Structure formats: structure tokens, C-alpha cells
């Protein structure tokens, strides 16, 4: 007997909000068990970003790369490519922007900035195109190849930032400071918040338009969900896949470039707390929808930054977020017992 029959849109809301709410509730139970001040811990986790304008700016800066990477994952997944190389594309994009930014020290103001951002996006695109070509031409599994490329990219940037680009007077593995002429301006009226956030917020509807309101997007989604059908009706599926991966890598590279130009102003080897994997989580939580990704990226930025305040104010370690994210992704695609497997 069904006591509660929900109308369809309520059910969608439940499937969308269910997982994060369940995980947050489970996390609260854990915090209750280990903490002497669970209320303050969760209050910090969820609301610390709004305590001051400064922490709100940090929230904006954290959300920006997450939204970019979420959109990057959405574009590749919609084309049926499991691009888990976002982290590597992000790092190489950031590194390319750093090199271009340092090289264009004397260039007039917008030119150097555009050059650096373009270099980052192009590098990311090329770095994603390589595994896509391997997949399309030879059938090399893209999950494994992009994971390998992540390690290679991280080691490469680590070499560059500790040897040729190392700023010897700074502490830690960081590059020379970029000339102020290539810095991305802050959002007017929001001290410390990067205007890259506005670009990310503009890319989200663009990605939606591309995917759901153009023929190209329809072809791409067809190529992703059923490549044989796509080929049979005359869609050049391989080409769509390559284009989607180039876009996906370009967005991830742009995320790295804009982080360097807008927030770090120099390359720092550990600038990403795993933006790649969190971007994947953001995209999956949004059910691969660009507008959903805006919400889920904001949610993740909220929780990641809130966790830092939580660790300072209470006895709950911030790795609580990592633990909960693990459960979230693990159960994300679970359909329940007896559900038929998609073929």
C-alpha cells in the first residue's frame, strides 16, 4: 500500500536532494559522536562563508574552479567520455598561463591577460584531446589514460615550479609573481573575490545552450548515449567526441589559468585540493546538468570552506568532508536493489 504518492516533480526533487541531505545527516550523526560542540561544528560547516565579506570572497574564489571543472566533466560525460583527467588539465592550464603571463610582462594590459588565459585553455584542450584521440582511434580506455596523464601533469608542473620558475625568496614551491598587468581584476565592490566567477557563471548557460539548444549538442548527446545509433543516422560521432573533449579540457585549463591570474597571481604546486575529483562530484550531483552544476559547485565551495572554520572552532577535523564525499560518490549512481542494469 502506498500511503504517499508524490507528484513527479517532487520525486525529481527528492532524487536530486536526497543524496546530499542523507550524507549531511549521516555526517551530523558522526559529528555528534565525536565532537563536544556538534552544533557549532555544523553551523560553521554550512554558514561560516557568510560570517564576513572576506569569507564570502573566499567562497566565491573556491566556487569558481569547482564550477569550471564541473562543467568540464559535464561536457565530456555527455559525449560518453569518462574524462577524469580534469586535475591534470587544470594544472597544465595554470602552468601555461603562468609561463605566458611571465613572458608577457611588458605587454599592454588586456593583451597579456588574454594571452595567458588563452594559453591555459589551449594547453588544457590539447591535454584532453590526446586521450580522446587514443580512445577514438585505438580504443584506449580513457579512464586509465586520463588518470595516468594526471600524475604526469602534476610531476611536470612540480619540476617546472621547483626548478626553472622557482621564486627563490618565497617560501615553498611557488613560481615568480606574475606582473600586475596580467592580473584578472576583482569583482567591483567585493574585495578579494575574483571576477573569474562571473566568467564561470557565464559559461554555465553557454554550456547549456550548446548541449540542449543546438544541433551540435544533440549530436553530441546522441554520440554519448548511443554511438552506434549516432553513426547509423549519419552523425560523425568520433568527431563530436573529440570536440567535446577539447572543450572539456579547454574549460579545465581555463579554470587553472584564471585561478593563477585572478587568485594566486603565481603558480603554487598545491593550489588544488583535488579540484578535479570534486569537480566530478559536482557534475554527478548535478546529474550532468550545467545549471545544476552552479548549485552543486556552490554547495561544495560552501562545505569545503566551512570545514576549515569548523576545524579552527571545534574539534572536528576538516577531512570530514573528504570522508562524506567518498560516501556520496560511492552511492551516487546506486539505483536500488533489483533495478535493471542499463545496457
Amino acid at each position, binding site marked *: 500500500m502506498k500511503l504517499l504518492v508524490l507528484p513527479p516533480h517532487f520525486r525529481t526533487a527528492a532524487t536530486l536532494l536526497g543524496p546530499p541531505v542523507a550524507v549531511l545527516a549521516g555526517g551530523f550523526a558522526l559529528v555528534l559522536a*565525536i565532537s563536544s560542540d556538534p552544533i557549532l561544528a555544523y553551523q560553521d560547516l554550512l554558514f561560516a562563508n557568510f560570517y564576513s565579506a572576506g569569507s564570502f570572497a573566499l567562497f566565491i574564489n573556491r566556487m569558481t574552479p569547482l564550477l569550471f571543472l564541473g562543467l568540464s566533466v559535464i561536457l565530456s560525460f555527455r559525449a560518453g567520455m*569518462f574524462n*577524469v583527467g580534469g586535475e591534470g588539465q587544470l594544472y597544465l592550464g595554470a602552468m601555461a598561463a603562468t609561463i605566458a603571463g611571465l613572458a608577457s610582462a611588458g605587454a599592454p594590459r588586456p593583451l597579456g591577460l588574454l594571452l595567458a588565459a588563452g594559453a591555459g585553455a589551449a594547453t588544457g584542450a590539447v591535454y584532453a584531446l590526446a586521450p580522446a584521440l*587514443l580512445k577514438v*582511434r*585505438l*580504443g*584506449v*580506455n580513457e*579512464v*586509465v*589514460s586520463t*588518470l*595516468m*596523464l594526471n*600524475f*604526469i601533469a602534476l*610531476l*611536470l608542473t*612540480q*619540476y617546472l615550479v*621547483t*626548478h626553472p620558475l622557482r621564486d627563490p625568496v618565497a617560501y615553498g614551491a611557488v613560481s615568480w609573481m606574475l606582473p600586475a598587468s596580467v592580473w584578472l581584476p576583482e569583482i567591483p565592490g567585493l574585495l578579494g573575490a575574483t571576477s573569474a566567477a562571473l566568467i564561470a557563471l557565464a559559461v554555465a548557460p553557454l554550456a547549456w545552450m550548446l548541449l540542449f539548444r543546438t544541433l551540435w549538442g544533440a549530436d553530441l548527446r546522441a554520440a554519448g548515449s548511443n554511438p552506434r545509433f549516432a553513426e547509423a543516422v549519419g552523425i560523425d560521432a568520433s568527431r563530436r567526441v573529440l570536440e567535446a573533449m577539447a572543450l572539456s579540457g579547454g574549460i579545465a585549463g581555463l579554470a587553472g589559468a584564471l585561478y593563477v591570474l585572478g587568485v594566486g597571481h603565481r603558480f603554487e604546486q598545491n593550489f588544488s585540493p583535488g579540484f578535479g*575529483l570534486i569537480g*566530478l*562530484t559536482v557534475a*554527478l550531483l548535478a546529474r550532468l546538468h550545467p545549471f545544476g552544476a552552479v548549485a552543486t559547485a556552490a554547495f561544495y565551495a560552501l562545505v569545503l570552506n566551512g570545514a576549515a572554520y569548523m576545524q579552527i572552532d571545534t574539534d572536528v*577535523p*576538516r*577531512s*570530514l*568532508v*573528504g*570522508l*562524506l*564525499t*567518498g*560516501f*556520496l*560518490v*560511492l*552511492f*551516487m*549512481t*546506486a*539505483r*536500488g*536493489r533489483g*533495478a*535493471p*542494469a542499463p545496457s
Partner: protein
Amino acid sequence: MLTAQLLNSTLVQTTPLLLCALAALITSRANILNVAVEGMALAAAFAAIAVGQATDSSALGLLAALFAATAMAFLFGAVAIGLGADFIVAGLGLNILADGGALFLLEEVYQDPGGLRPDQFPDLWRVPANALSNLPLLGGALEGQSAIALAAFAAVPLCAVFLYRTPVGYALRAVGEDEAAAAAAGIRAARIKMLAVLISGVLSGLAGAQLAMDRLHFFLPDMTSGRGFIGLSAALFGGAEPWPTAGAAFLFGLAGALGDRLQSFQAPSEFVLMAPYVAALLALTIARWRAARRAKPAPIRNRQT
């Protein structure tokens, strides 16, 4: 002397890769792309050091490692097989969970997010020095290897026998090749897949235990550093056949050992560390390239009719 040394360090590097590769091989024969090897091995490494330190017994540490990895494997199997989740997404989730869980425990229990470094840690049983001095090359290569390394070498023929000479192995390969046909033949596919995942858990557990307990005797949050994925590449490169896969793992181990050698010639360590990942990527590409060449139909010559 030098070659025996190089062979010895190659085997040290190979052991965890080989175990990860076999773990990925077993699941891949059941048609599961197992990216969770990484997380299972990480959980095992943490359990090995935590329990080994608490009990001062390497045997208990090893048991804890096996238990932790198998428990992770069970969770993975329950979600992916029982609840029908996507294997890749669930596997990546398991990796995040292992990483986040280890960090959480480090901060919550040991108050040190940097890692777990016991002052004293019991060593594993290893082949005594000079025990095999009458064997020319192999003796020098095997002396000093841990018990887990020996188990890893033995696991290769065991996997071959299991897959090709036992009824369960038959069933496992049948499920991997055509699940519907296997089910029609009366094989309980879900159970067989779960078994494959659990076996891969045990093998990943050995890999994690070897990483933490063999020489280092400490745990670091990024300790596995992609070895699970390299092992997965080895299994794919070896076409999921036990001996070729072991050969691939040995090759990647050799790349690592040669890299260590190079380091004494002032090569930047980053490029040295890159060697196994580049080797794995190249190997995968070559394997697929050869397969593509073979699958290509012969060119049609100009027929004069």
C-alpha cells in the same frame, strides 16, 4: 653483482604493482573495470601500520590490512553489484572514501594529518641474506624479499590455475564474456562478480601491506600514488592474462628501478617518478595499436573485372 642488485630492486618495485595488476585482472575477467584497487590498497596500508603499531606484530598488521581491503571490496561490491551503481563512479567514490577516511582517522585519532610514523615497527619475514648464495643471479635478486613478495610471485600461477583449471574460474570467465548467457547456463552472475571483487580486495590488501610494511614502516596519505591505476594498466596491457600481465608489471617495476638508478646521475626526481606512468600509458597505447592492426581487414586490391 650489479645486475642482481638491479633485479632485486626491480622485484621490490614490482611486488605492489603485480598485486594490484592481478587484483585488476581478476575483476576484469568478470567484465568489471576496477579503478578501486587504489583505494583498497590505501586502506590496507593504513590498517597495516595502525594495527602493527598497536599490537607490535607484523602478522596482525598484515591480517588487518587484508581485512580492511576486503571490507572495502565488499562495500564496493555491495554498492556496484547489489545496488547496481556504475562501477567506475563507485570505484572512484571508494578511492575518495579511502583517502578521506584515512585522513579523518589520522587527524581524529593520531592528531597528525601528515602521516603515521611509529618509532618502532615489527618487520615482515624476509628471505635471509646469503640463504640462496649458491643460486647465481636469482639468489641475489630474491634475498631480502618480504614474505608478501614471495606470495605475489606465487599468486601469478595461482591466478592462472584458478581462471583456467577450476569450475569457479570457468564461471567467472563466462560471466565476464556474456553475463546473460552465463546466467542462462545456471551461473549466479551476481555472486561470481562479488567473488571476483572480493579476491581483488585480498590482492589489493597484500599490495597495500607490502607498500607500508616492507621497508618504509610508515603510512602517508598519498602512499599508493597511482599504483592501483598502474596495476590496472598492466592488466589491460597484458590482455587480462596472468603471465603477460605479470610481465607488464615487471616492466613497470623495471622502469621504476631504472629511474631510481638514474637519480644517482642527478636526473630531476620528477622525471624519474614519471617513468612508470609514462611506461603504462605507452604500453596501453601499443597494446591497443597492435590489437587494432590485427583487427583491421586486409586491404582490398584493385580487382580487374
